[in-house]
């Protein structure tokens, strides 16, 4: 589904990613771990199309297409979803309006008709319930006055509604207490399927107790320096990142 080859990325004149390689197949969950400043967030942002990053070399292919050529909204409509580390607030725009606008933009891209209002309500209510969220959230302005945990749950709700193919979770566990973490993890686990892939970017091993990855990669100084199975995360938890960076 996703092939990243020798990717190099600058912010300004500073090189952040220095030749990154990663292959992700449908149905797989990849965890990207690494110390602060290794380039984890840069990777999430470059894949999802945020401006401000200069790709200086390498390629990213998504379902056979050149991902880097696509504007951010086209990537989203093609099924790339980023769950933000810091979800933004939008005053006066209700959650339910955003969800409907986003869903319709994606449906239109796929050549489908706009979703029927009643069908939409039924769908959004069932997804809200599945995430243990109060329906009132739907009619509140996007993330306005939400707690950290509520914001992250809201991201998962959007993911559940938009049914993306490639989900990128950027430090989704940061700022979550243990109950919220479990709810978010349950939400993600419920979305696991053989046509869907996940890239989880995280600093801590904690999230991986709840969402079991197929692969764990260590990102350090702009490159993947070590890859392995779920057991690698435990080793990292024990030894820290230092031994890999020096290697």
């Amino acid at each position: 589904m996703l092939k990243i080859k020798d990717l190099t990325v600058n912010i300004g004149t500073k090189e952040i990613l220095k030749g990154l390689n990663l292959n992700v197949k449908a149905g797989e969950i990849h965890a990207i771990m690494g110390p602060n400043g290794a380039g984890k967030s840069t990777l999430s942002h470059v894949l999802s199309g945020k401006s401000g990053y200069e790709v200086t070399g390498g390629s990213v292919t998504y379902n056979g297409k050149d991902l880097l050529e696509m504007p951010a909204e086209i990537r989203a409509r093609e099924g790339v979803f980023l769950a933000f580390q810091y979800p933004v607030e939008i005053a006066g725009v209700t959650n339910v309006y955003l969800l409907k606008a986003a869903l319709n933009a994606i449906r239109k891209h796929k050549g489908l008709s706009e979703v029927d209002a009643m069908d939409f309500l039924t769908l959004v209510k069932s997804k809200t319930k599945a995430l243990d969220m109060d329906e009132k959230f739907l009619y509140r302005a996007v993330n306005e006055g939400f707690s950290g945990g509520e914001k992250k749950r809201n991201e998962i709700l959007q993911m559940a509604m938009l049914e993306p193919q490639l989900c990128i979770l950027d430090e989704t566990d940061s700022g979550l207490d243990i109950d919220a973490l479990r709810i978010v993890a349950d939400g993600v686990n419920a979305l696991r399927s053989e046509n869907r892939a996940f890239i989880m970017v995280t600093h801590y091993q904690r999230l991986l107790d709840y969402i079991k990855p197929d692969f764990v990669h260590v990102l350090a100084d702009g490159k993947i320096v070590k890859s392995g199975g779920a057991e690698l995360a435990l080793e990292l938890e024990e030894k820290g990142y230092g031994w890999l960076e020096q290697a």
Partner: protein
Amino acid sequence: MSANNDEINNLLNQDYKQGFITDIQADTFPVGLNEDVIAKLSKVKNEPEFMLEYRLKAFRHWQTMPSPDWAQLKIEPIDYQEISYYSAPKSKDNGPKSLDEIDPEILEAYKKLGIPLAEQEQLAGIAVDAVFDSVSVATTFKSKLHEVGVIFCPISEAIREHPELIKQYLSSVVPVGDNFFAALNSAVFTDGSFVYIPKGVRCPMELSTYFRINASNTGQFERTLIIADEGSYVSYLEGCSAPQRDENQLHAAVVELVTLKDAQIKYSTVQNWYPGDKEGKGGIYNFVTKRADCRGENSKVSWTQVETGSAITWKYPSCVLTGDNSVGEFYSVAVTNNLQQADTGTKMIHIGKNTTSTIISKGISAGRAQNTYRGLVKILKSAENARNYTQCDSLLVGDKCGAHTFPYVEVKQPTAQIEHEATTSKISEDQLFFCQQRGLSAEDAVSMIVNGFCKQVFKELPMEFAVEAQALLGLSLEGSVG
């Protein structure tokens, strides 16, 4: 980073769509202003003697007044002798008797603006008075309104047909010498709408006036007077547009509202005068005095305005809360782009006991525009237990524009409760990226964010206007209001 800002700018720089010129034959006075011109004007309009005296008194007063000077506005001096004070489409006699007599070009012009005047196409539930340059060309649904006793007609007709109401109420809210432009308007106003809602009547439809400036080198000086008698209710809508011209044109209107005991007026404006081009050439100077007197107890006036046009907007729809328990409301969205300047806000003067006022102002600045909120809340000694809530929010798009807030508060009564909140924010790159990452185009994202910002005001607009207002911001609608 700047890519997103460029998209915002493209979106905001859509061309002015009402800029067409209608080619009709018109009777236009030569430029210049003196007592003879005023006498001629009064004669052309077949006015009774008392109106000429009123006009001359206003003119003489105006001549003694200095042209005002504003701290936040840059205005080229206006030469009042270079303006024509009357321009009317040529007609056989004193105004069209039926739609057949209206120049088809004019009907076509209103049709282009989305205001069909022909009976079979009229908008259901809205009666329209169409003012073209200096005269009212058509008023729809007149007879239907007459059945319930509502008078809705051009003010020039009211001066002839209902002089007793005119004598009683004209300038009873905005005195002739109130300010420079009000005095000028009183001397030379040509037409506008007159509304009288009798006791206990709830006006069965929305009333609306559409102002169109067409002729060049003319000013539009319209006058609107709305009287809601005891226990009555009316919702009134005002829309405006003008052709695209290189010179500045002056629009100096006066609007007076009077509510008697238990009466309510809801006054909504969507102002879309030509704003000038991107270099600031041309555009309408919109200097307007709008004031309501909540004269009776328990009466209420709501002003809702969406200001998108004009090179310069100078306007403070105000409420004088005379009656006990009366309520004044002001909801405003003011958008400025390129070199537009807006200095707008409201005045709430609390006189009666237990009077309350609410002010919600949303300013959006883009390009190099300057947007100023200027508001006064005044609580007099007599206004026991008066309350005011004010909220002023500014949204900046780009980094070359400005937003300014000048709230004035004068309280002479210790029981008053006053709240003021103000915020300034920018459409952030992060918000835009978030929306795009959910599949929305940058255009839809900006539209959604701006709509969200204006929502508190848009929800006060009547349905038809809310739609127009959103479309005016260059935005797609779909449900974000409501």
